[in-house]
Protein backbone atom coordinates (compact mmCIF):
# COMPACT_ATOMS: atom_id res chain seq x y z
CA UNK A 1 0.00 0.00 0.00
CA UNK A 2 1.15 3.47 -0.83
CA UNK A 3 2.56 5.06 2.30
CA UNK A 4 0.79 8.37 2.30
CA UNK A 5 1.43 9.42 5.88
CA UNK A 6 4.38 11.68 5.28
CA UNK A 7 3.46 13.05 1.83
CA UNK A 8 1.36 16.22 1.42
CA UNK A 9 -2.11 15.23 0.19
CA UNK A 10 -1.83 17.18 -3.04
CA UNK A 11 1.65 16.12 -4.04
CA UNK A 12 1.66 14.51 -7.45
CA UNK A 13 2.95 10.94 -7.23
CA UNK A 14 2.34 9.73 -10.77
CA UNK A 15 0.96 11.34 -13.88
CA UNK A 16 0.64 10.12 -17.40
CA UNK A 17 -0.88 10.57 -20.81
CA UNK A 18 -2.16 8.01 -23.29
CA UNK A 19 -3.27 8.80 -26.86
CA UNK A 20 -6.64 7.59 -28.19
CA UNK A 21 -7.55 7.17 -31.84
CA UNK A 22 -11.17 7.39 -33.02
CA UNK A 23 -12.43 4.29 -34.79
CA UNK A 24 -9.62 2.09 -33.54
CA UNK A 25 -11.67 -0.67 -31.91
CA UNK A 26 -8.73 -3.09 -31.99
CA UNK A 27 -6.93 -0.93 -29.44
CA UNK A 28 -9.96 -0.27 -27.27
CA UNK A 29 -9.22 -0.84 -23.61
CA UNK A 30 -5.49 -0.25 -23.88
CA UNK A 31 -5.62 3.10 -22.09
CA UNK A 32 -7.51 1.58 -19.18
CA UNK A 33 -5.26 -1.49 -19.03
CA UNK A 34 -2.26 0.88 -19.03
CA UNK A 35 -3.73 2.90 -16.16
CA UNK A 36 -4.64 -0.28 -14.28
CA UNK A 37 -1.01 -1.42 -14.49
CA UNK A 38 0.34 1.94 -13.30
CA UNK A 39 -2.05 2.04 -10.34
CA UNK A 40 -1.36 -1.57 -9.43
CA UNK A 41 2.38 -0.81 -9.41
CA UNK A 42 1.65 1.90 -6.84
CA UNK A 43 0.14 -0.77 -4.64
CA UNK A 44 -3.29 0.84 -4.59
CA UNK A 45 -6.32 -1.09 -3.35
CA UNK A 46 -7.69 -3.52 -5.95
CA UNK A 47 -11.23 -2.16 -5.90
CA UNK A 48 -10.06 1.40 -6.39
CA UNK A 49 -7.86 0.31 -9.29
CA UNK A 50 -10.76 -1.56 -10.84
CA UNK A 51 -13.10 1.42 -10.52
CA UNK A 52 -10.51 3.68 -12.16
CA UNK A 53 -10.10 1.18 -15.00
CA UNK A 54 -13.86 0.85 -15.54
CA UNK A 55 -14.52 4.59 -15.83
CA UNK A 56 -11.47 5.02 -18.06
CA UNK A 57 -12.64 2.20 -20.32
CA UNK A 58 -16.08 3.78 -20.78
CA UNK A 59 -14.58 7.20 -21.52
CA UNK A 60 -11.99 5.69 -23.85
CA UNK A 61 -14.71 3.77 -25.68
CA UNK A 62 -16.71 6.95 -26.28
CA UNK A 63 -13.68 8.58 -27.86
CA UNK A 64 -13.20 5.55 -30.11
CA UNK A 65 -16.88 5.46 -31.11
CA UNK A 66 -17.71 9.17 -31.37
CA UNK A 67 -14.52 11.17 -31.84
CA UNK A 68 -11.57 11.54 -34.19
CA UNK A 69 -8.86 11.49 -31.55
CA UNK A 70 -8.29 12.20 -27.91
CA UNK A 71 -6.14 11.71 -24.84
CA UNK A 72 -6.29 10.17 -21.44
CA UNK A 73 -4.53 12.16 -18.71
CA UNK A 74 -4.20 10.83 -15.21
CA UNK A 75 -2.86 12.33 -12.01
CA UNK A 76 -2.38 10.42 -8.78
CA UNK A 77 -1.91 12.12 -5.40
CA UNK A 78 -2.19 10.57 -1.93
CA UNK A 79 -5.73 11.96 -1.88
CA UNK A 80 -7.14 10.84 -5.24
CA UNK A 81 -6.85 9.65 -8.81
CA UNK A 82 -7.91 12.25 -11.35
CA UNK A 83 -8.80 10.95 -14.80
CA UNK A 84 -9.34 13.33 -17.69
CA UNK A 85 -10.43 12.09 -21.10
CA UNK A 86 -10.54 14.77 -23.72
CA UNK A 87 -11.40 14.42 -27.39
CA UNK A 88 -11.68 16.22 -30.66
CA UNK A 89 -15.07 15.05 -31.83
CA UNK A 90 -18.47 16.34 -32.81
CA UNK A 91 -19.32 17.05 -29.19
CA UNK A 92 -22.60 16.47 -27.39
CA UNK A 93 -25.58 18.72 -28.11
CA UNK A 94 -27.69 17.80 -25.10
CA UNK A 95 -25.58 16.58 -22.18
CA UNK A 96 -28.58 15.96 -19.93
CA UNK A 97 -30.02 13.60 -22.52
CA UNK A 98 -26.67 11.88 -23.08
CA UNK A 99 -26.42 11.19 -19.35
CA UNK A 100 -29.73 9.33 -19.33
CA UNK A 101 -29.50 5.58 -18.95
CA UNK A 102 -30.28 3.95 -22.30
CA UNK A 103 -29.76 7.00 -24.51
CA UNK A 104 -27.40 6.22 -27.38
CA UNK A 105 -26.70 7.47 -30.88
CA UNK A 106 -24.35 4.60 -31.71
CA UNK A 107 -24.81 3.21 -35.24
CA UNK A 108 -26.22 -0.34 -35.68
CA UNK A 109 -22.85 -1.98 -36.32
CA UNK A 110 -21.50 -0.60 -33.03
CA UNK A 111 -24.61 -1.92 -31.25
CA UNK A 112 -24.00 -5.32 -32.80
CA UNK A 113 -20.64 -5.34 -31.05
CA UNK A 114 -22.45 -4.88 -27.75
CA UNK A 115 -21.58 -1.21 -27.31
CA UNK A 116 -24.12 1.57 -27.59
CA UNK A 117 -26.51 0.58 -24.84
CA UNK A 118 -26.37 4.06 -23.34
CA UNK A 119 -24.76 2.87 -20.13
CA UNK A 120 -21.29 4.38 -20.39
CA UNK A 121 -21.81 7.88 -19.04
CA UNK A 122 -24.17 6.70 -16.24
CA UNK A 123 -21.55 4.05 -15.32
CA UNK A 124 -18.81 6.69 -15.17
CA UNK A 125 -20.93 8.94 -12.99
CA UNK A 126 -21.94 6.16 -10.62
CA UNK A 127 -18.49 4.60 -10.32
CA UNK A 128 -16.50 7.79 -9.70
CA UNK A 129 -16.62 10.04 -6.64
CA UNK A 130 -16.66 13.23 -8.70
CA UNK A 131 -17.79 13.48 -12.31
CA UNK A 132 -17.76 16.42 -14.68
CA UNK A 133 -18.52 16.56 -18.38
CA UNK A 134 -18.01 19.47 -20.68
CA UNK A 135 -18.75 19.51 -24.38
CA UNK A 136 -18.71 21.99 -27.21
CA UNK A 137 -20.52 21.00 -30.39
CA UNK A 138 -18.08 20.82 -33.28
CA UNK A 139 -15.05 20.97 -30.99
CA UNK A 140 -15.05 18.11 -28.57
CA UNK A 141 -15.81 16.65 -25.20
CA UNK A 142 -13.95 16.48 -21.88
CA UNK A 143 -14.83 14.11 -19.08
CA UNK A 144 -13.15 14.58 -15.71
CA UNK A 145 -13.48 11.97 -13.01
CA UNK A 146 -12.03 11.72 -9.53
CA UNK A 147 -11.74 8.63 -7.37
CA UNK A 148 -10.81 9.14 -3.72
CA UNK A 149 -8.14 6.90 -2.27
CA UNK A 150 -9.13 7.09 1.37
CA UNK A 151 -12.81 7.63 1.67
CA UNK A 152 -15.81 5.91 3.19
CA UNK A 153 -17.99 6.89 0.24
CA UNK A 154 -15.50 5.31 -2.14
CA UNK A 155 -15.35 2.06 -0.20
CA UNK A 156 -19.11 1.70 -0.27
CA UNK A 157 -19.30 1.82 -4.04
Amino acid at each position, binding site marked *: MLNTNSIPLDKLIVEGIFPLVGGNFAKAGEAS*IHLKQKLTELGLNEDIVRRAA*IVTFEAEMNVIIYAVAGWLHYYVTPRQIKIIVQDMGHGIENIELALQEGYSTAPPWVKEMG*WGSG*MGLPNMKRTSDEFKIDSVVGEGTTVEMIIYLNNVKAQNK
Partner: protein
Amino acid sequence: MKLADLVKELSLEVKTCKDGLQRDVDSGYVSDLLSDVLANSAKDNIWITLQTHINIVAVASVKGLAGIIIVASRQPQEDTLKKAKVEKIPIMTTTKSAFEVAGKIYQLLK
Protein backbone atom coordinates in the same frame (compact mmCIF):
# COMPACT_ATOMS: atom_id res chain seq x y z
CA MET B 1 -15.00 -24.22 -8.25
CA LYS B 2 -11.95 -24.34 -10.50
CA LEU B 3 -12.36 -23.24 -14.10
CA ALA B 4 -10.87 -26.60 -15.11
CA ASP B 5 -13.79 -28.40 -13.45
CA LEU B 6 -16.32 -26.24 -15.32
CA VAL B 7 -14.54 -27.05 -18.58
CA LYS B 8 -14.84 -30.76 -17.82
CA GLU B 9 -18.43 -30.69 -16.61
CA LEU B 10 -19.69 -28.73 -19.61
CA SER B 11 -17.27 -30.25 -22.16
CA LEU B 12 -16.09 -26.78 -23.19
CA GLU B 13 -13.50 -26.32 -25.90
CA VAL B 14 -10.57 -24.32 -24.49
CA LYS B 15 -9.24 -21.80 -27.02
CA THR B 16 -6.67 -19.89 -24.95
CA CYS B 17 -4.76 -20.15 -21.68
CA LYS B 18 -5.05 -23.87 -21.09
CA ASP B 19 -2.63 -23.29 -18.22
CA GLY B 20 -4.87 -20.61 -16.66
CA LEU B 21 -7.63 -23.03 -15.73
CA GLN B 22 -6.66 -23.28 -12.07
CA ARG B 23 -8.50 -20.04 -11.41
CA ASP B 24 -11.43 -20.12 -9.04
CA VAL B 25 -14.86 -19.22 -10.37
CA ASP B 26 -17.32 -18.10 -7.73
CA SER B 27 -20.20 -16.89 -9.87
CA GLY B 28 -21.10 -15.90 -13.40
CA TYR B 29 -22.52 -13.14 -15.54
CA VAL B 30 -24.52 -13.45 -18.77
CA SER B 31 -24.63 -10.48 -21.13
CA ASP B 32 -23.84 -9.40 -24.65
CA LEU B 33 -23.73 -5.70 -23.75
CA LEU B 34 -20.18 -4.71 -22.91
CA SER B 35 -21.01 -1.66 -20.80
CA ASP B 36 -23.39 -3.86 -18.81
CA VAL B 37 -20.56 -6.30 -18.12
CA LEU B 38 -18.25 -3.41 -17.17
CA ALA B 39 -20.87 -2.12 -14.74
CA ASN B 40 -22.41 -5.24 -13.27
CA SER B 41 -20.11 -8.26 -13.46
CA ALA B 42 -17.81 -9.00 -10.55
CA LYS B 43 -14.22 -10.17 -10.15
CA ASP B 44 -13.74 -13.93 -10.69
CA ASN B 45 -17.05 -14.24 -12.57
CA ILE B 46 -17.21 -16.51 -15.57
CA TRP B 47 -18.68 -14.45 -18.43
CA ILE B 48 -21.15 -16.10 -20.81
CA THR B 49 -21.68 -14.26 -24.09
CA LEU B 50 -22.12 -14.55 -27.83
CA GLN B 51 -19.81 -11.65 -28.56
CA THR B 52 -16.61 -12.81 -30.31
CA HIS B 53 -14.70 -9.63 -31.13
CA ILE B 54 -11.47 -8.36 -29.61
CA ASN B 55 -13.05 -5.93 -27.10
CA ILE B 56 -14.31 -8.79 -24.90
CA VAL B 57 -10.71 -9.47 -23.82
CA ALA B 58 -10.08 -5.97 -22.50
CA VAL B 59 -13.44 -6.01 -20.70
CA ALA B 60 -12.56 -9.30 -19.00
CA SER B 61 -9.09 -8.03 -18.15
CA VAL B 62 -10.25 -4.75 -16.64
CA LYS B 63 -12.93 -6.50 -14.57
CA GLY B 64 -10.68 -9.36 -13.44
CA LEU B 65 -13.07 -11.98 -14.81
CA ALA B 66 -12.05 -15.65 -14.58
CA GLY B 67 -12.75 -16.37 -18.25
CA ILE B 68 -15.14 -16.06 -21.18
CA ILE B 69 -17.46 -18.75 -22.53
CA ILE B 70 -18.62 -18.02 -26.07
CA VAL B 71 -21.89 -19.83 -26.70
CA ALA B 72 -23.98 -21.19 -29.58
CA SER B 73 -21.07 -22.46 -31.70
CA ARG B 74 -19.75 -18.97 -32.32
CA GLN B 75 -16.01 -18.73 -32.86
CA PRO B 76 -13.73 -15.99 -31.51
CA GLN B 77 -11.90 -13.97 -34.12
CA GLU B 78 -8.15 -14.42 -34.64
CA ASP B 79 -7.21 -11.06 -33.08
CA THR B 80 -9.45 -11.87 -30.12
CA LEU B 81 -7.47 -15.05 -29.46
CA LYS B 82 -4.16 -13.26 -29.90
CA LYS B 83 -5.08 -10.57 -27.40
CA ALA B 84 -6.50 -13.15 -24.96
CA LYS B 85 -3.12 -14.90 -24.92
CA VAL B 86 -1.35 -11.61 -24.15
CA GLU B 87 -3.82 -10.65 -21.41
CA LYS B 88 -3.99 -14.25 -20.12
CA ILE B 89 -7.76 -14.52 -20.41
CA PRO B 90 -9.10 -18.06 -20.85
CA ILE B 91 -11.59 -18.24 -23.73
CA MET B 92 -13.81 -21.28 -24.16
CA THR B 93 -16.44 -22.19 -26.74
CA THR B 94 -19.48 -24.44 -26.71
CA THR B 95 -22.30 -25.50 -29.01
CA LYS B 96 -24.75 -25.02 -26.12
CA SER B 97 -26.95 -21.92 -25.75
CA ALA B 98 -26.38 -19.22 -23.11
CA PHE B 99 -29.48 -20.53 -21.28
CA GLU B 100 -28.12 -24.06 -21.06
CA VAL B 101 -24.62 -22.99 -20.08
CA ALA B 102 -25.83 -20.59 -17.39
CA GLY B 103 -28.27 -23.17 -16.04
CA LYS B 104 -25.63 -25.87 -15.75
CA ILE B 105 -23.07 -23.55 -14.14
CA TYR B 106 -25.66 -22.20 -11.73
CA GLN B 107 -26.38 -25.75 -10.58
CA LEU B 108 -22.68 -26.57 -10.25
CA LEU B 109 -21.87 -23.46 -8.19
CA LYS B 110 -24.92 -23.69 -5.94
